[in-house]
Structure formats: C-alpha cells, structure tokens
C-alpha cells in the first residue's frame, strides 16, 4: 500500500478497519527516511523505540483503547526537548545534550498515542530562513534538491513533503513554520501566542516563539492543534483560553469577509506567486466570500522591528550556554572567563553569533532607547494595524513568501537579503496572531507556492475554515505529493 499519499485522517480509517497496522506504517516511514538520507531532514531517528511504541499502540487499537492520534507518526523539530533523547537545537554546543525532562506538547501528543519517529533538522536555535545554518548539514527541498526547504523548521517541512512521517512539529518565531511549509508544499500552522505551551521549547525569542504543526492536510493540522493547545502551569505565558475542537470545520465561506492588505503586494513578489494568490482570491470570491482591501500601513517596518526584538531576546536567552551546566565546554581554558568565551565561540555557529552580537548591541547602554525601546513602540503600531483591519474582516489573506524556494548558497553571503525574505511572516509574531500557510499552486518550475491566512488572536477556527475550503476547492492541489 502506498502510504505516501495519505494524511492521518485517511490513515486512521485504515488503522481502525485493521487494513494496516501501526507497525507497518512506522516501518514504511523508517524505510523512506533511510532511502532519503541525502535530504538531511532528520538529525536523530528512533527506529527501535518507534517500532516498540507502534507494537503497543497496535495492541491498544485491537483492544479499542487507543488514543485520538494512534499511529500518527510524528517528526519532532530538534528544538523541542525529549526526555532521554538527544536534543541538539541544530547546534554543536548541544551535540551531546540528553534532556532529563520533556516538552509539554510532547507529553500531550504521546498521551494520545502519537509515535515519535525522530528529531528533525533545523537552523541552529531556529535562527535562519533556509536551513543552511545547521551544524548537522543543510536540509534539501524534496521538490528540488538543489534548493532550500526554507527555515528554520526546514527538516520538519521536508520530512512531511517527502512522506518521511505523517506530520511534524515545528516552531515559529518569525515565520519558521509557515515559510518552510510554503517552500515544501505542505500545511504549516503557527498558533496564537500563548495557545500552545512553550515549556520544553529551547527559547530563541520568548515573546515571539510558538510551537505548531506541519502536516499533509488542513484537517491534520487542526487535529494536532486540538491536542497541543491549552494552558500549562509550566509556561506562565500560556493562555487560559478554552481549546476549541479545531477539527470541526464548517465547509462554507459564503458571506465571510477576507482582507487583502495592499502593502503585501510589493515589487519583489514573483509573478507566479502573485497569480497563484490572485487565483485563490478569485476562488473565494466565486464562493461567496466578500473580498475587501485593507491596509496594514506599518508593514514596511516589520523586518527591522523583528530583527531588533528577536536578536535582543536571543542574546539574553543564549547567555545560558556557558559550558557549565550542559553542552560543549572548551577543556583547555585556564580560567573561568576564558572557558565561557572559548566554549561559546567554538560551540555556536556564525549566524547565531551574529544575532547574539546584534542583540547585545541593541540592548547595550546608550543604544537601548534608540533601538530596542523604539522597536517595541513600533511593535505596538504593527499590532494596532491588525486590530484596525480585523474590525471589518474575518481573516486576512497574503502570500506566505515573496518567492518560491531559492537555491542553496544563494543568500548565505548576505544576511540582510536573507532577513528580508521573512517580510510577510514576521508581523504575525510581533502581533501574536495565528497564521496558516497552505499550498495554493506551483510556479513554472514546479515549485510549491503558499498562501497565508491570518486570524484574530485565538481564532484559529476561522483560518482553518478558510484553509480547509481552499484545500478542498483548489483544483491544482490534487496530486501535490512529491515522489522521492
């Protein structure tokens, strides 16, 4: 049986009907991972552990006691700590780190009988838009292995697109779930800030970070979110907002208002991306949705604001890596100060060091007000833009990225150009809003194009409803699987 083309919702009916077992499903993915090692999608694979879990869950299925995610084989971004399993964050500094505790989301998904097959590759500590900043080799895009999968959750996106697992977890600080989902032609959901507990996610920028699913279908993303979401006393920023049953999606978009922000249709937008977005807008219009032009006037300031805030928070968060309690230590240092400096200098990669340096600068005495405080004020303006727009529309539709997947090494030499590729995704993190990227077409070279839907805070249901509708009614989405 060809499992590649199946999302979890289809796989589950086969498992319940006993036409296939969790062990067969797990073996299928393990073989796929083995055949596709050149993608570098995984940093660690837990073959034995995953098969053992699959056996247990097959037994539970036979007994009728299996959880709601039984047999869903999940790749886990290696920024989420898993108990007794190496967690590297894509960094040399954590090459041998074995966490003694586990992320809350993993506990929640494990309780529903999801199977963890391995830890996926990423840009070091989530810092990157191409997955080229990993100490464990760059990930390649399954649609074209000369191109990047996007970042930083590039391993997760490539693993789902290449059918190396049923779905995967990613993290999103400035677009790190949505942009790789767009580049790899899968669904990627960044929940509202506070919707999912961040406990056990190694922090990059704490006021922006969120964990979310990457999946083969909107229904799978919705199902995963349902079990990931909720208040957690171990994360004081997780929200006490009730969790909806996201998997129940109303089919129609008739009468709903979709905002199109004119500031997102900029000169750098590739023509093929533009026309795929236009087609999606037309589809919604033909289906009875009302299309309204909206304005998000501070969009052009989002990248600068983001890179000030994110690097400032990163410089503080990454101060914990000092070679004392965990991680790499330079053994040759003759005193404590030298040990700190050498361990950090040899343990971190170039982009991480660049961001720590930038963050240290914008927080340093004399520059705090000019950069950091200024950026936090502009963040207020960006947030207000969205509040204003959501007074008249139910959801906002934009491209996820101005381009399709670019080539490996194309942008590494120029950090600023790389940063600018996040232009459509960072605003949501600054405002704390939920966003989903789903495939809406392909360019002339056959590379996937993603459309992004933005919702009000804690209104994931609305964007899932639109995403579900687009997925179901967009004719070019049929046959979107990659064969690798």
């Amino acid at each position, binding site marked *: 049986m060809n499992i590649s083309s199946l999302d979890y919702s289809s796989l589950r009916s086969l498992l319940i009907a006993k036409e296939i077992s969790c062990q067969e499903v797990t073996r299928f993915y393990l073989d796929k991972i083995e055949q596709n090692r050149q993608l570098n999608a995984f940093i660690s694979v837990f073959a034995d552990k995953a098969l053992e879990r699959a056996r247990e869950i097959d037994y539970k299925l036979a007994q009728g006691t299996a959880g709601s995610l039984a047999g869903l084989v999940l790749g886990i971004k290696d920024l989420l700590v898993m108990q007794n399993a190496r967690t590297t964050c894509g960094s040399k500094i954590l090459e041998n780190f074995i966490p*003694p505790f586990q992320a809350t989301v993993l506990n929640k998904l494990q309780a529903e009988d999801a199977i963890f097959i391995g830890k996926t590759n990423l840009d070091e500590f989530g810092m990157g838009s191409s997955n080229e900043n990993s100490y464990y080799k760059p990930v390649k895009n399954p649609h074209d292995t000369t191109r990047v999968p996007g970042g930083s959750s590039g391993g997760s996106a490539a693993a789902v697109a290449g059918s190396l697992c049923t779905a995967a977890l990613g993290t999103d600080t400035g677009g790190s779930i949505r942009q790789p989902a767009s580049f790899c032609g899968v669904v990627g959901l960044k929940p509202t800030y*506070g919707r999912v507990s961040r406990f056990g996610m190694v922090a990059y920028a704490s006021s922006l970070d969120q964990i979310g699913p990457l999946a083969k279908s909107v229904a799978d993303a919705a199902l995963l979110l349902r079990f990931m979401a909720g208040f957690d006393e171990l994360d004081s920023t997780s929200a006490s907002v009730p969790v909806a049953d996201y998997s129940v999606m109303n089919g129609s978009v008739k009468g709903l208002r979709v905002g199109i922000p004119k500031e997102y249709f900029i000169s750098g937008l590739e023509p093929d991306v533009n026309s795929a977005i236009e087609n999606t807008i037309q589809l919604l219009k033909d289906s009875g949705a009302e299309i309204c032009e909206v304005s998000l006037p501070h969009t052009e300031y989002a990248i*600068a604001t983001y890179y000030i805030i994110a690097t400032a928070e990163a410089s503080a968060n990454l101060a914990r890596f000092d*070679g*004392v309690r965990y991680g790499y230590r330079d053994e040759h240092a003759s*005193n404590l100060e030298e040990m700190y400096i050498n361990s950090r200098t040899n343990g971190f990669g170039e982009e991480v060091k660049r961001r720590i340096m930038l963050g240290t600068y914008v927080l340093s005495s004399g520059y705090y007000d000019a950069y950091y405080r*200024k950026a936090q004020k502009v963040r207020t303006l960006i947030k207000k833009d969205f509040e204003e727009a959501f007074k008249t529309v139910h959801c906002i539709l934009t491209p996820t990225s101005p381009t399709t997947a670019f080539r490996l090494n194309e942008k590494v030499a120029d950090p*600023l150009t790389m940063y600018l590729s996040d232009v459509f995704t960072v605003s949501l993190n600054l405002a704390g809003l939920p966003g989903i990227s789903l495939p809406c077409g392909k360019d002339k070279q056959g590379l996937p194009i993603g459309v992004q839907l933005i919702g009000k805070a804690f209104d994931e249901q609305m964007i899932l409803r639109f995403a579900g509708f687009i997925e179901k009614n967009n004719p070019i989405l049929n046959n979107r699987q990659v064969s690798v």
Partner: protein
Amino acid sequence: MSVTLADVENIARLAKLSFSKEEMITFTGQFNQILQYMEKLNELDTENVEPTFHVLDSGNPLRDDVQQTWLTPEQALANAPKAKNGFFSVPKMIG
C-alpha cells in the same frame, strides 16, 4: 549611527565571544548595513506610543507555593561537562 571596529570588539566582550580580526572586520561591515536598515524606524514618530513588550496582557499568573519533586541532583548534573561531589565544577576563578 555608525559602528566601528572598536564597538564590535566591545560588544564581543559583553557577549563573551571572541573573533579573529578578519571576522571582526566582516561583522563591522554587516552590522553597519543591518543597523542602517534598522534606522528606518526613525521615520516614525513614536513619541506618544506605548511599547509592547508582550502581546498577551494577562498579568503575572501566580500559583500556590507548594513543594514539588522535580529533577534529582543526579539528573541535574547528568549533562554537566564536569561535576564533583554533587556540584558543577569549573576552572579556578581566583589564582
């Protein structure tokens, strides 16, 4: 605002990182390019705008101060590059 090589050296000292002269020069150039881009924010008048440090305005959630079991000392020390007598061990600080 323009960043000099001396500024970059000072930031490296604060961040506890060290770089070769060549790396410092590259960084200085990149910093100036990136910071110049960030100065775009000065186009905006934010005199009367409150900063948003956090998007959720939920206040400080408090819980009861109840003793709980967390990591054992052995677990807490298991990842330490060097541990001795139940403590993290580091190179000498005072000669």
